[in-house]
């Protein structure tokens, strides 16, 4: 863009952006610091000493909540949602490249899935399962509920990717005698791999943190966000912050690992 000296507008906007970042991360760091609260400390500043007491507390059996179990369930559910989202979005993205009857209807159904209030989906799935005599569970009804949130993102991302995707690569492969499977496996898939990993990251993080849709659909055993949501009303010790710090750190780790993976894939592609 312009190469001349920075304008006043630039400095004003830089300050605005910096304030925005502080606004985004400031409260999170308050939780991070307070989770190291001393044994006698409360939910607010000041720190009454520094300890790992509340983290240790997480590992003990609790009067409220079962963190280990709910974490394992959320992890398993997140992985199921990720896999399904990546595969189904990729297939749908491929389908939308051709014209077929109902394509527009299906596209708008996916958009509708994004705008329908989450609590309505939760209520609907809960009632459907009840009327069909099925027991709601995190691996069935909650899985479906999460997919109504992650799939539209996946489909929209794939839609955008294929909008920009030149068919020339595939035509070249076919002209060289590649079968349609070979074209898909060795030409298309490597090119869109970073986007697919991005879709997977979205799928996992959206599912791992989702609770509005899970509310009536989780069945007997809670997922981690439901556990935390229940805690906000009846826990008055910094153990809540310790849990927040741990799950947020886990989310950051997942995001970081995924970004590094995407970066590596891109670098390898540039080399090759």
């Amino acid at each position: 863009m312009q190469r001349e000296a920075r304008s006043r507008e630039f400095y004003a906007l830089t300050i605005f952006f910096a304030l925005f970042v502080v606004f985004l991360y400031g409260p999170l760091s308050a939780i991070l610091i307070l989770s190291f609260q001393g044994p006698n400390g409360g939910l607010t500043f000041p720190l009454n000493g520094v300890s790992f007491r509340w983290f240790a507390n997480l590992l003990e059996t609790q009067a409220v909540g079962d963190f280990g179990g709910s974490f394992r369930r959320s992890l398993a559910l997140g992985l199921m949602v990720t896999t399904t989202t990546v595969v189904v979005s990729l297939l749908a993205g491929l389908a939308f490249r051709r014209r077929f009857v109902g394509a527009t209807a299906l596209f708008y159904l996916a958009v509708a899935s994004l705008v329908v209030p989450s609590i309505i989906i939760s209520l609907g799935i809960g009632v459907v399962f009840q009327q069909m005599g099925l027991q709601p569970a995190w691996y069935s009804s909650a899985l479906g509920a999460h997919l109504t949130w992650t799939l539209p993102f996946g489909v929209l991302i794939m839609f955008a990717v294929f909008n920009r995707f030149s068919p020339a690569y595939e035509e070249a492969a076919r002209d060289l005698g590649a079968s349609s499977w070979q074209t898909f496996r060795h030409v298309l898939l490597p090119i869109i791999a970073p986007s697919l990993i991005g879709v997977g990251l979205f799928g996992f993080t959206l599912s791992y943190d989702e609770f509005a849709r899970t509310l009536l659909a989780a069945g007997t055993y809670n997922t981690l966000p439901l556990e935390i949501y229940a805690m906000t009303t009846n826990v008055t010790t910094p153990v809540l912050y310790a849990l927040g710090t741990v799950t947020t750190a886990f989310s950051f780790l997942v995001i970081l690992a995924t970004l590094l993976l995407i970066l590596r894939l891109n670098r390898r592609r540039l080399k090759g």
Partner: protein
Amino acid sequence: MATLASSHTDTADSAQARAGRRFPAALIAYLQAAPLALILCSFLLLPILMIGTVSFWDYDFAAMYPDFVTFNYTETLGSWVTWKTYLNTLKFAFLVWGITLFIGFWVAYFLAFHVRSSAMQMVLFLVCTVPFLTSNIIRMISWIPVLGRNGLINSALLNAGVVSEPVEWLLYSDFAVVLAMVHLYTLFMVTPIFNTLMRIDKTLIEAARDAGASSWQTLLNVVLPLAKPGMAIGTIFVVTLVMADFSTVQVMSGGQSASVALMMKNQMSLLQYPAAAANAVILLALVLLMVAGILRIVDIRKEL
């Protein structure tokens, strides 16, 4: 004419022969679209149809009874509390929309037009995105030690001598609800606007400047009109998220404020599913109307 027609069928035949070695092309598209259609039909369409049905059912404290009664609607729409709750929800939607649009536009504008290297652009964009990928509830409760009676802001104000008593309306108030929602949802505004701004041809900006426009005029007459589709998509996200919100309202208002979804949630916890269903139908109709209105301005498929 005849030769033209025959050559046409020839190419069509050979294309079909090539594709038809295994499956006809159309069938492949249907097979690829089937999983998405199946999942959305069973976990989105069917539940919504079920809610529509149940909203006409009778119920008592123990169960629902298939019936065709309209009192779930008349009770909901006839209640003064419902109207107040809807107004309150719309108030939140409007406030949060206005604030996120303002913040979202300037953040996206800064990223798209003032950050020079694309690597830096990506890094700063990721800095904005990462919190969005972490837990909403954690981000919500992280305001409690900041805004609370003994929180950071109050202690700072007290120490500075600005106030003599802690400010009470910071937490558990409508202010806290709006603040937390802005915190949670601004990114949904930043991303679509950033996306449209990045697609603006930079020569347009240069042309405006060469024609003597000040940077303010360029912003107002070139950038802003071209950013409208992104703003519309961001608006859809923010408005639907706020209209559906119950947790932020519950946690941040400390039970002192209400929203439609929170009202539904309370009905659900009392097992009054038909009443909640009637509310759901009304809320859904309202949200879809708002989205349809916004979609008249923008074609999403073109913006992706």
